[in-house]
């Protein structure tokens, strides 16, 4: 039986690899010479700690992957920590490694800890989908998310409500907004200039009373939750 999959064009093999976690993608370099270098040009990096026996191995693996792959080709980055707690400094190094590249999808998920986001985190020119779970945001320096279409914040703690209002006021093209399990002290004055105007928003799943209802004038689906 001939090796037919090896005869497929690179673009097709890259697309197959894009459905796998990075751990499985890297292992394909062992298959044959045809596969040896494909893993270095991933369109997606996907790390899930449930596939790793220890946090040390998990962290080492991510460090090595970020060093060895061509980050230019990466469009999607997914980091899921369900089992382990990782050091904040590690997360910052990983996130910083990505800021200069053309990411369109960024998902960072921490289940067992809250990670302090650097105040300059929200600068991604090309990101259209941003999903964050398990973070603390204390300060917010300039925000630049001109391409953002979908924002999901789950279990995120804000130092004050102005912080989240300001963040959202920069997300002008948002079509999808999901806010769950927010922790925010309320001192909300609905000042015109600070309140987001979601003119393109189609889907919202947000705590009730966080925004004046006017901002949702164009929404097609809205789910208001208890905070």
């Amino acid at each position, binding site marked *: 039986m001939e090796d037919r*999959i*090896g005869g497929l064009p690179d673009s*097709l093999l890259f697309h197959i690899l894009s459905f796998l976690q990075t751990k499985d993608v*890297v292992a*394909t370099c062992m298959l*044959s010479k045809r596969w040896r270098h494909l893993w270095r040009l991933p369109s997606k990096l996907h790390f899930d700690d449930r596939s790793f026996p220890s946090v040390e191995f998990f962290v080492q693996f991510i460090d090595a992957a970020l060093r060895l792959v061509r980050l230019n080709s990466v469009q999607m980055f997914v980091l899921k920590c369900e089992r382990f707690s990782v050091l904040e400094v590690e997360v910052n190094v990983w996130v910083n490694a990505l800021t200069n590249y053309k990411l369109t999808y960024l998902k960072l998920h921490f289940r067992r800890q809250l990670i302090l986001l650097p105040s300059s985190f929200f600068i991604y020119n090309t990101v259209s989908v941003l999903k964050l779970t398990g973070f603390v945001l204390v300060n917010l320096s300039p925000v630049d998310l001109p391409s953002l279409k979908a924002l999901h914040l789950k279990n995120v703690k804000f130092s004050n409500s102005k912080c989240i209002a300001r963040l959202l006021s920069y997300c002008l093209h948002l079509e999808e907004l999901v806010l769950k399990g927010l922790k925010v002290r309320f001192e909300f004055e609905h000042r015109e200039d600070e309140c987001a105007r979601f003119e393109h928003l189609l889907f919202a799943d947000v705590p009730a009373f966080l925004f004046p209802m006017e901002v949702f004038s164009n929404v097609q689906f809205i789910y208001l939750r208890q905070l």
Partner: protein
Amino acid sequence: MSSSVEAITVLSSDGDEFKITVSAAKLSKPLNWMLEDVCFSDDCDEVPTIEVNSKTLVKVIEYCEKHAPRANSGASDSDAEELKKWDIEFMKMDVKDILFHILMAANYLHMEGLYDLACQTAADLMKGMTVSQIRKIFHIKNDFSSEEQEQLRRQHPGCSFD
């Protein structure tokens, strides 16, 4: 042939004739172009050939006919659920034999949905498998010399050849 035609006839690479409805053919850009040619040209006797073998073309057309109503009109979420289930059943096929051809056909016919589905199916076969298991599934020959294997082992201490 008039532009109100509802189905066109195509030839597979094996020379067999197949009928495909116009709405189903619209799922593929090249088929769509072919369709416009067939519908609007004066010389309609020629049956276009698609470089896909008969066995694969049957599957591709089956996929197109199933997905056409939703692609052309949009449908409810329950339809989407049902279609997902159908896709899973549809992809339960002999890997060695036909998945490879479906991948090639979806690529050649620019069918985004089928392309994603087939690539996802191939990836699912690799998920969590060892290197030697993947080689076995796809008949990949290990063409590394023992020195190269040793080098790869050193570079990737976490991965295994077995």
